[in-house]
């Protein structure tokens, strides 16, 4: 206990592996530039400039990910792991974020502009707001927020110590809290969602942090491999470990929306601007699952028999709760929110599989789910009446008659959610269930199978509404013809959904190259 006294303080110059960190750095750098753009450029140039920056950053980062393929090392002085899973997740996040960004960039479907409040500070319904709307001002601050958020997401699954992970968690969360509150329409709901998300998010990160503190107390370090070593040596108080793991898990499970930490999900998904909902549903889930896997497999692999039953319970509960609650929803966004909870439950099967197959299965599932989710929410933005998006299910009746193509695309996404073969969703389900049974988690797979059968009901119900029912009488919603942005987003999502469904080997090849975590 005299480290300070006798050691000559040495300061090692940290080494930073820029190539490996490039994706994160590019996005975060772009975010900074984006902030500067907000500060310096006049209003009318901002939007186009921001879009250039965003897409350039996303593409550049993706190129960097591809360039870094095969890397399997711990960088940034032991804080960040750039390994197969990281790169795969970063790549997926970037692709999903790009698709989501396309939807966010849409400004044709809402006659008043894009889908964000022109000035978030203006009171809903106030004169100010009307002026801003009349002037056609657009909210461009969402783009730096978006970039920071993506940056956090890229870092989150790559973190190899709990502190970096915590910082990444906050970097991805804080912008999201804000973005959720930026909806142009139904601002009351949007703000409420924002508040709830913030309060609960902060609450959960406090748990995460305290858990970190306890694990630090146990191991004397917050690095994942350090914790793993400590566990192997069984040094210290196991009570601290168990409590620490429990609290840590709360933070992580909150982000993936697992029951019983899921209750924010429907409220936030419903209140948030739909394009943001799609983005966070898809990307946050990938990032959070990455972090969960890394913590559980790298740091806590040694006590897997301790946390496995807990994850069993959580997985089963998540599947059941998500499915059960979704059954009677009447709002499409809320329904998709509960569906995302149920899907998280299926993905957790990959976690309890305790194997690299489980990891790979979940990764495939995440990609499949993310693509379908972004696509589905993109379509939700298109179905509108005079007050904005028409999200009540009854308003979707007969959509197949009026807009067969859009309805067909939505039906495809729904079938993917339901896990019908030849769609991406089946590929994902097959992969996690296989891993689950291989890992000896057969009971949980059976629960999953039954839950997916029940879950099929609410997906199918929407198809029934769209295709088998008569449209509402006059005044019902209609499908707006979007600009190239959303069209491209939906097209890409449809194409990927089909390709992953029909030729699953493509994604399996990718994911098996992802290999395992570096320690």
């Amino acid at each position, binding site marked *: *206990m*005299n*480290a*300070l006294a006798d050691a000559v303080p040495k300061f090692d110059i940290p080494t930073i592996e820029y190539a490996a960190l490039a994706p994160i750095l590019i996005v975060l750098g772009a975010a900074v530039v984006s902030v500067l753009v907000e500060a310096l450029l006049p209003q009318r140039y901002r939007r186009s400039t921001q879009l250039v920056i965003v897409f350039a950053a996303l593409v550049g980062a993706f190129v960097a990910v591809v360039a870094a393929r095969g890397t399997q090392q711990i960088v940034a002085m032991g804080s960040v792991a750039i390994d197969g899973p990281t790169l795969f997740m970063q790549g997926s996040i970037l692709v999903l974020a790009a698709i989501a960004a396309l939807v966010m960039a849409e400004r044709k479907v809402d006659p008043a502009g894009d889908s964000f409040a022109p000035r*978030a*500070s203006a*009171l*809903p319904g106030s004169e100010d707001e009307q002026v801003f709307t009349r002037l056609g001002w657009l909210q461009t601050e969402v783009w730096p927020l978006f970039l920071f958020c993506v940056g956090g997401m890229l870092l989150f699954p790559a973190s190899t110590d709990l*502190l970096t992970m*915590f*910082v990444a968690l*906050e970097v991805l969360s*804080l912008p999201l*809290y*804000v973005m959720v*509150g930026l909806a142009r329409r139904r*601002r*009351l*709901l949007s*703000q*409420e*969602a*924002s*508040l*709830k998300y*913030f*309060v609960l998010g*902060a*609450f959960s*990160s*406090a*748990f995460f*942090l*305290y858990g*970190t*503190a*306890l694990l*630090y*107390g146990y191991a*004397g*370090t*917050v690095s994942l491999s350090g914790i793993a070593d400590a566990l192997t040596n069984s040094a210290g108080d196991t009570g601290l470990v168990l409590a620490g793991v429990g609290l840590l898990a709360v933070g992580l499970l909150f982000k993936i929306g697992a029951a019983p930490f899921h209750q924010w999900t*429907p*409220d936030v998904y*419903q*209140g948030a601007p739909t394009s943001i909902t799609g983005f966070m549903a898809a990307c946050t889930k990938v990032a959070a699952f990455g972090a969960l896997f890394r913590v559980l497999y790298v740091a806590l692999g040694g006590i897997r028999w301790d946390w496995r039953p807990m994850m069993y319970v959580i997985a089963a509960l998540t599947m059941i709760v998500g499915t059960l609650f979704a059954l009677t929803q009447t709002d499409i966004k809320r329904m998709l929110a509960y569906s995302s909870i149920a899907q998280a439950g299926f993905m957790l099967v990959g976690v309890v599989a305790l194997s690299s197959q489980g990891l790979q299965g979940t990764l495939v599932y995440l990609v499949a789910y993310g693509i379908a989710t972004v696509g589905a929410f993109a379509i939700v933005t298109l179905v509108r009446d005079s007050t904005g998006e028409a999200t009540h299910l009854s308003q979707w009746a007969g959509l197949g008659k009026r807009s067969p193509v859009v309805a067909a695309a939505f039906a495809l996404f729904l079938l993917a959610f339901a896990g019908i073969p030849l769609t991406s969703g089946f590929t994902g389900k097959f992969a996690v269930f296989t891993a689950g049974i291989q890992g000896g988690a057969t009971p949980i797979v059976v629960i999953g199978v039954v839950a997916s059968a029940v879950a099929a009901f609410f997906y199918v119900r929407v198809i029934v509404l769209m295709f088998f029912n008569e449209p509402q009488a006059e005044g019902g919603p209609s499908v707006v013809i979007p600009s190239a942005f959303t069209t491209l987003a939906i097209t890409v999502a449809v194409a990927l959904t089909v390709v992953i469904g029909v030729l699953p080997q493509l994604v399996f090849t990718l994911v098996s190259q992802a290999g395992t975590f570096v320690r």
Partner: protein
Amino acid sequence: MNPANYIYLSAVLFSLGAFGVLVRRNAIVVFMCVELMLNASNLAFVSFARIHGNLDGQVIAFFVMVVAAAEVVVGLAIIMTIFRTRRSASVDEANLLKY
């Protein structure tokens, strides 16, 4: 003094914070309770640093403070907005989204 006692204190503070989140309605107070939980963590970090005799815990505490500060910025902004809209800072009144 046994550094373990600081740990117990931090646990008590954390619990108080969590309890506060559950019982208080005012968003600002709720938020302060969250801050209390974060600071309880800080206390735990520095105490453990003391116990383990390495500096990591203390450094972490600084990181946490920075993050908490950022959280305050975002949090207060959100609470402000909703207060202006609703003329109330009660977390219970924001109750349109349910079921």
